[in-house]
């Protein structure tokens, strides 16, 4: 059976963070209930299409999925088990934020089958948290983390952010240190650098010069320090911004980079099935009126587009792309399609071949410098 990943979008939160450009907003309880009901309808309505697939990962994301009643998460997973063939070893993740969960809620998630928890911390400095518009303090995070461990979770991710307004390298490293002192240490750490997105309050503040963002040099330093410190504690950087202890890389996210097929449910959720990318509409009202009538933006990927994706997605992972994998997918060698680009970037010190393995062939990976300027490299893999 073909592998499938499922994504469920819960577009609600307590309050919008100042940097957030995700499809998410606070809402009344009745709205949340109506949405969750619609979501279950969409799952039931579409599941038939995916009869041939075995679900390998489930990701409940948002927003803050933990703002809806725990009952809804239980019913969601029940429905998934009813409607899909789900692998016994499936990775089932949910995103939570401190301040929106208690011991009972976490325990109910665990009992319902959730085996991976992703906690949004962002910073261990309360001033910085306030600056981001987060709803919680460092103390509240500690409490959530402790409760999560008590509930039985051993695969926990902690999200942190660098390059925050007013943040120094020292202050950032302090966050890292504090996270590494958690007991047990989190299995996974996502360390993003802040991107000021159009349309967010941060973008407005930035235009007015009200955001004191660290300079480029400082930002680079934070990135380097992340890698060094986490490496020392046994984390491997397996993707541009993701670090994990052995065996704990997020399978769901890796699926995106390896072009594993995935089906998204809920407003704005994207899918990749049969080399078609499509997305549900972003309107909540439309979705509530007809949860099965919102699919749109269907884009059938040409072979060239698939090749482009193979490279610009695959290169996000430190394991890079396999020459043999390219051949298996397209019946052409990587060098016959991209030889010139690869050669140029190897000469510029941005790409390299690694680990010639007997059975799988060489892997093409970004060098450390290449990771820093990956967009520059990836853009070259697009065809004219």
């Amino acid at each position, binding site marked *: 059976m073909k592998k499938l990943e499922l994504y469920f979008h819960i577009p609600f939160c307590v309050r919008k963070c100042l940097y957030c450009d995700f499809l998410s907003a606070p809402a009344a309880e009745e709205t949340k209930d109506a949405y969750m009901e619609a979501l279950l309808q969409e799952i039931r309505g579409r599941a038939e299409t995916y009869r041939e697939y075995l679900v390998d990962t489930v990701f409940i994301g948002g927003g803050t999925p933990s703002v809806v009643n725990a009952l809804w998460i239980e019913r969601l997973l029940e429905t998934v088990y009813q409607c899909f063939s789900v692998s016994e070893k499936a990775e089932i993740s949910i995103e939570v934020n401190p301040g929106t969960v208690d011991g009972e809620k976490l325990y109910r998630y665990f009992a319902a089958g959730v085996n991976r928890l992703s906690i949004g911390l962002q910073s261990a400095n309360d001033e910085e948290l306030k600056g981001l518009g987060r709803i919680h303090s460092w103390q509240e995070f500690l409490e959530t983390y402790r409760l999560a461990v008590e509930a039985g979770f051993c695969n926990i991710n902690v999200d942190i952010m660098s390059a925050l307004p007013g943040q120094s390298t020292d202050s950032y490293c302090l966050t890292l240190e504090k996270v590494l002192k958690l007991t047990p240490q989190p299995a996974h750490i996502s360390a993003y650098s802040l991107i000021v997105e159009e349309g967010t309050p941060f973008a407005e503040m930035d235009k007015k010069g009200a955001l004191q963002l660290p300079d480029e040099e400082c930002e*680079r330093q934070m990135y380097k320090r992340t890698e060094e410190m986490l490496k020392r504690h046994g984390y491997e950087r397996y993707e*541009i911004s993701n670090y994990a202890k052995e065996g704990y890389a997020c399978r769901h*996210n890796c699926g*995106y980079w390896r072009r594993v097929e995935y089906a998204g449910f809920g407003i704005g959720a994207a899918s990749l099935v049969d080399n078609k*990318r499509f997305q549900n509409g972003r309107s909540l009202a439309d979705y509530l009126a007809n949860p099965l009538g919102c699919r749109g933006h269907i884009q059938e990927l040409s072979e060239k587009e698939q090749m*482009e994706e193979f490279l610009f997605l695959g290169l996000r992972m430190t394991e890079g792309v396999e020459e043999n994998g390219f051949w298996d997918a397209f019946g052409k060698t990587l060098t016959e399609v991209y030889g010139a680009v690869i050669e140029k970037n190897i000469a*510029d010190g941005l790409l390299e071949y690694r680990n010639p393995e007997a059975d799988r062939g060489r892997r093409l990976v970004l060098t450390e410098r290449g990771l820093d300027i990956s967009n520059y490299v990836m*853009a070259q893999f*697009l065809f004219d």
Partner: protein
Amino acid sequence: MSSVEQSKIRNFCIVAHIDHGKSTLADRIIEKTGLLTSREMQAQVLDNMDLERERGITIKAQAVRTVYHAKDGEEYIFNLIDTPGHVDFNYEVSRSLAACDGAILVVDAAQGIEAQTLANVYLALDHDLDVFPVINKIDLPSADPQRVIEEIEDVIGIEAQDAPLISAKNGIGIDEVLEQIVKKIPAPKGNPDNPLQALIFDSLYDSYKGVIIFCRIMEGTVKKGTTIRMMATGAKADVVEVGYFGAGQFIPCEELSAGMVGYITASIKNVKDTAVGDTVTDDNNPCAEALPGYKKVQSMVYCGLYPADGAKYPDLRDALEKLQLNDASLHYEPETSIALGFGFRCGFLGLLHLEIIQERLEREYNLDLVTTAPGVVYKVHKTNGEVIELTNPSNLPDPSEIEYMEEPIVSAEIMVTSEYIGPIMELCQERRGRYLGMEYIEGTRALLKYELPLNEIIYDFFDALKSRSRGYASFDYDIKGYEQASLVKLDILINREEVDALSFIVHADSAYERGRKMCEKLKEEIPRHLFEIPIQAAVGGKIIARETVKAMRKDVLAKCYGGDITRKKKLLEKQKEGKKRMRQIGSVEIPQKAFMSVLKLDDKK
């Protein structure tokens, strides 16, 4: 049938400050009048007009003839001649005015007289035109027509008490304007039986008819078969057709006689033969002398035009050829740049003319262009006695071979209200102006006279003038001649390589300042590369300024979810697209617009 009585003809133009409603009024006049006299209606033209329609020839909105049925029961022919509104085309404006007998002055009822109002009125009065005022936009809440009327009488000194109060936009008061055109604009003079004497005020190339001459007949008569001669260029041709300007069409007629405005075609192949300002006469019965005011049009500003894609060079050549058919003031010759490859050195009347041509090439001919910094024509006196006219800085001989250099100087007149005299004088000083004098026109208005180097005014002088006087200064200039000056060639080195297309000539005293600003500007324009790029300005091999484009450090999309993949692809595509608009010089990619950056150096406002 075309022998309209002279007393029933009115030749006029409309003058106004920008946005005071000149073109709206012109539209209303055309709407409110007819295209044909009642006699013409029944007679000849219809079939010819149909033919014209089929050919689909449209005329430049340069002149239009309409017929007005006045309250006195008579039919009048109105010839409304449009005038371009920029100092680059001052000469063309003056020729258009010379084709008129009167002018309507449009003044905004709220804003009153402004800088361009004055400049345009004085230009019209200089040509002995009878000017009558019209107060427009009286429906605006802030309109104060009485104040404006008084202002017109005080400042310009023309009668304004009975000025029509109108709203061109809403069609109020247009009838009164039409009546005043009849009453206040004099009928043309001239004798149809005298030898032919006609003023060319514009011309245009049509692939079917050849050159179409737009002219005003001052004396005599012209008809099909007349052998005409252009008195300045000497070109001769037999007239194929004469006619007048309908709205959007050429309408043939039998003859054009003294006082009339119309067109002549004579299978002329090149607009160069029909220079604006030249006099058309009958070769077999020539007039005694040409009309006054003819000037040979000279290119004042030169720049290099290169196709962004080298393979498009033939397309650029064809496009320039076609544009030149219609524009005698455009000059071009092939040149080669080390940095940019094959292109053309082109000559223009001024910077606006340059921009118009550049835009037409890009829009009408779908060409992607790289334009180098504009410059003027310098005279280089070499030690061996030879004198070169330098239009391309790259051709400057070695300094050891140069005895001295000369640059073009203009006499400029700037009209300004007294509160801005200080800032304007400061501006002229910065631009190496030589103060000649100042006259007060009225209590609050002064005329400043300066001599200025042309290369100091071609870029952005007009803009600087406007911004430092809050739009209240008007400016006119004439080329005075050449003067010796201490000039140097400023070279730009990118990644230690000299980029010939970025070199320009500058006064020695401003070389350092310009070099520094140029480096700063280029630093902004050139994107980061994998390596560090020094940008240097040099004079005679000596580096006078330097900036550095730092190496690319970070270009990464930290966060990327499943739903973001389409978005991420778009971002990468944009990045790739950006690279296409670059010009590779050595190992450095330079955005096309960087080559024009020298234009944007004087951004002090």
